[in-house]
C-alpha cells in the first residue's frame, strides 16, 4: 500500500516537473528575443561563435539618438498617439452611451459593422486611406496620421466603453435625479467617476493600438511624421543591427509600462478585441 502511494506520488511529481519545464520553456521562448535585442544593443565586437558580447558599450544608443533622431521620432509618436486617443475616446463615449444605455434597434448588427475594421486586414483599406489623404493633403501631418489610426482605435474604444456603460447601475442615476441633480451635474458628478476605469482602459488600449500601428502609418507617414515603428523598419532596412536593437529597446520600454498597468488593473481577456497593429 505504501509502495503504491509512493509510486503515485512519484507519478504526480513527474507530471509537476514536466509541467514546470514546459512553463520555463515558454518563458524562454518568449523572453529570448528580448534578451538578444538587449545584448545586441550594448555589445561591441560581437562576432563569430560567442555567446556573449566581449565588450559592453552604450555607443549604439548614442548613435540611435543622434543619427536615428529618436527624440524627434518619439515626440511624433506621442503627439500622434495623444490625438488618436483623444478622438477615439470621444467617439467611444458617445457611441458607448448609445450602445450601453439607449434603446437601439439592430444593436448587434450595428456593433458588428463598427467592429468590421478590426476583422479586415488593415492593408486593404489603408490603400484607400492613403489615396484620400494624398488628395486631401493630410499625408505627413500629425493630425492625418492620427486620423488614420482612429480607424483601428475607435472600434476598440467603442467596444470597451459600451460594456462600461452597460454595467452602470440605473438606480444610482435615479438616486442622483431624486436628490435634485440635473442632467449635466449627473453626468459630471455621478456618471463620469463611475465610468472612469472604463475610460482609462479604453485610452490605454487605444494608445497601445496607435503606438504599435505600422501598416496605416507606413502608408500615410512623411519625413515629418516618422513614428517609432516606421523608424525601426527603416533601420532594419539599413542593416545596422546594433543601432536597430538600441531603437527597439527604447521603443519597448513604454510597452512594458503599459503591460504592467494592464496586468494590475485590467483582465488580460479584455485585451482580446485584438489591439495589435499588425
Amino acid at each position, binding site marked *: 500500500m505504501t509502495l503504491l502511494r509512493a509510486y503515485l506520488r512519484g507519478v504526480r511529481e513527474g507530471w509537476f516537473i514536466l509541467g514546470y519545464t514546459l512553463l520555463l520553456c515558454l518563458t524562454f521562448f518568449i523572453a529570448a528575443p528580448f534578451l538578444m*535585442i538587449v545584448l545586441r544593443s550594448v555589445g561591441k565586437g560581437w562576432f563569430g561563435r560567442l555567446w556573449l558580447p566581449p565588450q559592453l558599450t552604450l555607443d549604439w544608443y548614442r548613435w540611435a539618438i543622434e543619427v536615428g533622431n529618436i527624440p524627434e521620432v518619439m515626440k511624433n509618436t506621442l503627439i500622434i498617439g495623444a490625438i488618436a486617443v483623444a478622438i477615439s475616446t*470621444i467617439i467611444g463615449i458617445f457611441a458607448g452611451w448609445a450602445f450601453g444605455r439607449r434603446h437601439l434597434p439592430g444593436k448587434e448588427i450595428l456593433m458588428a459593422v463598427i467592429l468590421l475594421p478590426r476583422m479586415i486586414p488593415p492593408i486593404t483599406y489603408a490603400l484607400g486611406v492613403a489615396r484620400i489623404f494624398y488628395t486631401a493633403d493630410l499625408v505627413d501631418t500629425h493630425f492625418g496620421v492620427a486620423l488614420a489610426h482612429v480607424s483601428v482605435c475607435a472600434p476598440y474604444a467603442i467596444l470597451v466603453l459600451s460594456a462600461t456603460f452597460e454595467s452602470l447601475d440605473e438606480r444610482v442615476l435615479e438616486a442622483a435625479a431624486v436628490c435634485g441633480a440635473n442632467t449635466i451635474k449627473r453626468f459630471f458628478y455621478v456618471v463620469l467617476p463611475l465610468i472612469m476605469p472604463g475610460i482609462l482602459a479604453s485610452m490605454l488600449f487605444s494608445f497601445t493600438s496607435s503606438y504599435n500601428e505600422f501598416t496605416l502609418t507606413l502608408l500615410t507617414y512623411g519625413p515629418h511624421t516618422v513614428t517609432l515603428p516606421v523608424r525601426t*523598419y527603416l533601420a532594419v532596412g539599413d542593416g545596422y543591427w546594433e543601432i536597430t536593437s538600441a531603437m527597439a529597446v527604447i521603443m519597448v520600454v513604454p510597452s512594458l509600462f503599459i503591460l504592467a498597468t494592464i496586468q494590475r488593473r485590467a483582465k488580460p481577456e479584455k485585451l482580446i478585441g485584438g489591439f495589435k497593429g499588425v
Partner: protein
Amino acid sequence: MTTFWYLHKSRLITGVLLLPALLSFFGLFFYPMLLTVTLSFRPEGQEVGWTLQNYIQFLTDRDSHWVILLTFILALGSTAVSILFSVPLALILREKVRGHRFFRLMVIVPLVIPGLVGALGLLLFWGPRGWFNLFLMQMVPFIQRPVAVDYTIHGLIMFYVWLYFPYTCVTTMSALESLDRGIEEAGAVAGANRWQVLRYIVLPLITPGILAGSILTFMAAFGAFSVPLVAGGNYRPLAVEIYKQISIPIPAHWSAASAIAVVMGLLQVGFLTLYMRFVRRGGGGGAAGGAQ
C-alpha cells in the same frame, strides 16, 4: 417643428450620439474601402474607365497562386501550432502553480509588443549567429553549419506563433476558468480516469473557446504585414505583395495593389464565414463564442 422634436426626441438623441462613430466608420473605413474597390476596376494609372484587367492579371499569374497558397499555409499552420501550444499551457496554468501570475504575464507579452520589435528579436535569436544555432553547433554533434530558420516557411510560422498565439491561449484560459470543476469531479466519481476526464469532458467543453480564440489568431496571421515584410525574405504573403505593388514600381501600381487587396479581403471574409459555420455546426458542439 416642435411637435416633430417631441415625437422623435429620443431617436434623434441616439442618432446624434452615434454620429461620431458612424462618421469615423464611413470616413475612415467604408469610403476608403469603396475607393479601393473602384480603383481596382480602373485601368492602371487612370481615373476613368472600367476594366477587369487587374484581376485577370493577378488571378491568372502562376506566382500569385503561390502567394495565395503561401498566405493560407502560414495562417493555418500558425493557427494549428498555436492551438497545440495553448491547450497544454492553459491546462497547466489552470492549476495555481508557484509563479503562475508571472507565467500569465509572459503569455500576454507578445500582445503589447510592437510586431517589428518581436520580429527583430526573433531574427536575432534564430538567425545563423543567434543563440539557437550556437547551441546546436556547440552542444549537438554532427551539426557543423547553422540550421536555416529565418527566411524559411517553418521559421515564418514560428514567428507568427510567437506573435499571435496569445489570442488563442488567453481565450482558452478564460474558457477553462469558467468551467465548473464539479463536472469533472462527477466524471471522476463515475469512474473515468484523468485522461478520460480530459478527453471526454474538459476538451469538448472548452472547444468553443479554443476555436473562438483560434479565429483571432487566424485573422491576425492572415493579415500579418510587418513580420513577413521584415523577416519573410523571398516569401511574400498577400499583404506584403500589395505593399510591393505600391512601393517598388515608379509610378506605383495602385490599381494592381487594389485588386490584390480586394481579393485578400474577399478571401478572408469567405474563409471566416466558412470557419464560423463549421464551428457552429459541429466543431464546437453547440454554441460557439463569437469572434470577440
